[in-house]
């Protein structure tokens, strides 16, 4: 099937197209130069056209996501989707943690076509992939958790970076993972004993390695393996007042490492995720203030870093992370139900419901800090749109965040009428009048994540050769002013008028039309050094015999767990 999209205002930052009317031709799932006269014409007059959205950090598939659903039937009940058996559309539930089918539908309805599961424990990797099976439409990948992994900590402690790189390349392959994810390095291992680490210089028990050493070591490993994505870093001290110093110190560690990925065009050596939660000043919740300007200044002055925000949307939501000790802290703070799962030799996780009330001082400041970061970092190619869904709020709120970014009036309305006065007093938000353009929005939600993930050859733009993942939103730039009509921004991004996935119309007029289209699983297939890999795998096998509760043979994710594999070829024998 061929299509041609005509008359739309196109925003395609990687091709420097800023609202011009450009025809987009689609054939065989790709964007092409031209199509035949038989191509179906889509008239996008008075609408904006963007590449499909890319979420570089979300929690949609895997063990802890499912426990998030399990512990919250009262959340599931809040949003319900009916099945339409004739169309193949499945039922679903869940506001903050939607069920899998609904996750695919809701992302697609907003014009998103790719989403990255940000935390996959190796031992439970099969679970993540099983949920991907049941998450339609979206292309996806999962980041393998390595920041508290015993092998990594041991090899780095011994100074054997080659073995650390070999293990990392093997475990990413074995779990069909995509990137190196670091969560509270050393802290989650300490949580195995009920403890935590504080800052980047606090050694974790027994392994006697610090968060800083793990970050620097894995950042080096990442570039030795020349992976498509940089290290994906959830810093130590998440959510603690005064943590911005830890954040700045952490971000400086990967500076200067040579970056030359095998694929894509990434030039950065660290991606700091949900940085809103890491930009806090003060010493406790009473003198808590924003340090977003300090963090934004660092990002502005340094080119080795990208960030995503983890914007708070002021909803009742469900927090979930591999940062086990942090979730326990939340549970003791708000007294709500707490789930946790420690995973042998590898990682952990925790889950707690959270009510970000706009009437309360701290959530209001968190909301403002996120927006400050968006608005104070000058170059939108360094910034990715996330709520760390569902932590800061569910991904279904992205359109609302866009409206806050594009309209100073929307923010004034929030500050004057909706949020606690601390948002104005403890942050600089009220003094910022920058408004995002659609081009900026296209950057933070499309091109920036595509580049930092190393997927910009085929994703995040509308040039020839790109996957035909395209979103059309009903907003007329000729007669609508985003700054004044911010409600229309939210509604037009909530329900796209058209969404193409691989050249097929999967959403029309906000409704899913092909509910069972299945997306690709990206994963990285690399080999650092065949000889060394044999040696490392045999060391791993020995450890399995004694200390794991499954047999080594049953550990790696079998090929059949990946329905539509899209392996990205990494280095081959680079470590020789």
């Amino acid at each position, binding site marked *: 099937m061929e299509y041609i999209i005509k008359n739309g205002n196109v925003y395609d930052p990687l091709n420097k197209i800023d609202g011009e009317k450009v025809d987009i031709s689609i054939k065989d799932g790709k964007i092409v130069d031209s199509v035949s006269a038989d191509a179906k014409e889509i008239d996008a007059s008075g609408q904006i056209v963007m590449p499909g959205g890319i979420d570089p950090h979300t929690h949609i598939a895997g063990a802890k996501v499912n426990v998030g659903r399990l512990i919250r*039937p009262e959340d599931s009940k809040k949003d319900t989707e009916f099945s339409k058996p004739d169309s193949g559309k499945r039922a679903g539930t869940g506001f903050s943690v939607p069920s899998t089918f609904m996750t695919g539908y809701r992302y697609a309805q907003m014009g998103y076509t790719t989403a990255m599961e940000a935390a996959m424990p190796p031992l439970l990797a099969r679970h993540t992939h099983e949920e991907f099976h049941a998450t339609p439409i979206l292309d996806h990948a999962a980041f393998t958790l390595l920041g508290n992994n015993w092998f990594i900590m041991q090899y780095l402690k011994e100074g054997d970076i080659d073995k650390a790189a070999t293990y990392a390349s093997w475990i990413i392959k074995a779990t069909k993972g995509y990137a190196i994810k670091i969560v509270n390095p050393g802290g989650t291992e300490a949580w195995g004993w009920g403890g935590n680490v504080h800052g980047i210089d606090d050694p974790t028990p027994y392994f006697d390695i610090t968060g800083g050493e793990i970050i620097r070591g894995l950042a080096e490993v990442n570039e030795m393996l020349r992976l498509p994505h940089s290290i994906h870093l959830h810093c130590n001290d998440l959510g603690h007042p005064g943590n911005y110093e830890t954040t700045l110190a952490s971000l400086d560690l990967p500076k200067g490492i040579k970056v030359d990925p095998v694929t894509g065009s990434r030039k950065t050596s660290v991606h700091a995720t949900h940085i809103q939660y890491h930009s806090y000043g003060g010493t406790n919740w009473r003198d808590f203030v924003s340090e977003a300007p300090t963090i934004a200044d660092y990002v502005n002055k340094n080119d080795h870093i990208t960030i995503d925000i983890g914007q708070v949307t002021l909803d009742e939501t469900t927090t979930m992370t591999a940062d086990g000790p942090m979730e326990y802290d939340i549970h003791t703070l708000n*007294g709500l139900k707490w789930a946790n799962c420690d995973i042998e030799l590898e990682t952990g996780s925790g889950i707690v419901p959270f009510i970000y009330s706009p009437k309360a001082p701290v959530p209001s400041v968190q909301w403002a800090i996120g927006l400050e970061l968006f608005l104070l970092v000058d170059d939108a190619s360094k910034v990715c749109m996330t709520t760390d869904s569902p932590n800061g709020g569910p991904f279904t709120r992205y359109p609302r965040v866009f409206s806050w970014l594009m309209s100073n009036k929307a923010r004034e309305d929030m500050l004057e009428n909706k949020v606690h006065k601390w948002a104005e007093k403890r942050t600089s938000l009220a003094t910022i009048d920058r408004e995002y353009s659609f081009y900026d929005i296209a950057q933070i939600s499309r091109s920036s994540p595509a580049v930092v993930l190393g997927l910009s050859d085929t994703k995040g733009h509308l040039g020839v050769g790109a996957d035909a993942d395209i979103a059309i939103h009903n907003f007329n730039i000729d007669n609508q002013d985003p700054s004044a009509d911010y409600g229309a921004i939210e509604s037009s991004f909530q329900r796209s008028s058209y969404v193409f996935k691989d050249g097929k119309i999967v959403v029309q007029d906000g409704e899913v039309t092909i509910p069972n289209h299945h997306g690709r699983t990206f994963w990285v297939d690399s080999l650092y050094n065949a000889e060394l890999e044999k040696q490392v795998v045999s060391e791993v096998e020995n450890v399995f015999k004694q200390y794991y509760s499954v047999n080594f043979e049953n550990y790696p994710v079998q090929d059949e767990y990946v329905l539509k594999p899209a392996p990205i070829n990494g280095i081959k024998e680079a470590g020789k």
Partner: protein
Amino acid sequence: MNEVVLTPKEQPYVPIETSTIKPDDFANKSIDEIKDLEVWYGNTSSKIGDFFDVEGESGPTPAETNILIDGDVYNTKRIGQGMTDGKITVNGNVNMYVGAEMEGGIITVNGNADSWAGQDMRGGELIINGNARDYVGSSYRGDWRGMTGGIITIKGNAQNEVAEYMLGGKLIIQGDVRHMPGVHMNGGLLVIEGNVISRPGGEMKNGTIVIKGIVSEFLPGFEYHGIEKDLNIQGESIKGSFYKFKGDFSEKGPDGTVYVAVAGNNHIVP
């Protein structure tokens, strides 16, 4: 005041489920429109007229609309769910969720009710003149915020976990209950005029439970505070002498109170 009379035809083997039997849905509608309102019969969409003869006339607003269900509707669920005003009277038994999420108005059941009567109630009045089963005035699964307002009166007995996660309002049970009344309670008033088998106030953090009958077994997480006479709680004046307990200290910093009649309960005093 106008009245719509629903006379049940034979209740089917598989239950009927509907939240449309309430003044909010009936007000300002013709009898034919009321007959056309949707009910679920198992997994099929049906209409009120399939299961009830409908007569009378609705009022222009819910407040001016009475509904009389003249007969036994033991296999009909969710009668009066979410109603905000007006009256429902049932001359017979009802199935689960009568008056769930109710915000106003009055429901009177001249018969027995199944479980979850008055679940997540916000306001209004629910009177069951017979017995009720489990989870009267409770919350939905997983929610720590249950009933917040209104008054429920059960003239007969109820069973387990009444007033679970209750936050506000009043629940009065004139008969006996079984286990765990007021479990996880965090506000409001629960009065049990009859007996309790075990565990009143388990994991309660706040709110008040008054038990006039015999409590066979009491929990060890409470603190004994002596005898108090003639209580006045939430405008409710309760005569008699009561042992006072505070707790449940299995929870952090609890401020819950359980009063148990002195008569016949000496065995639960330490």
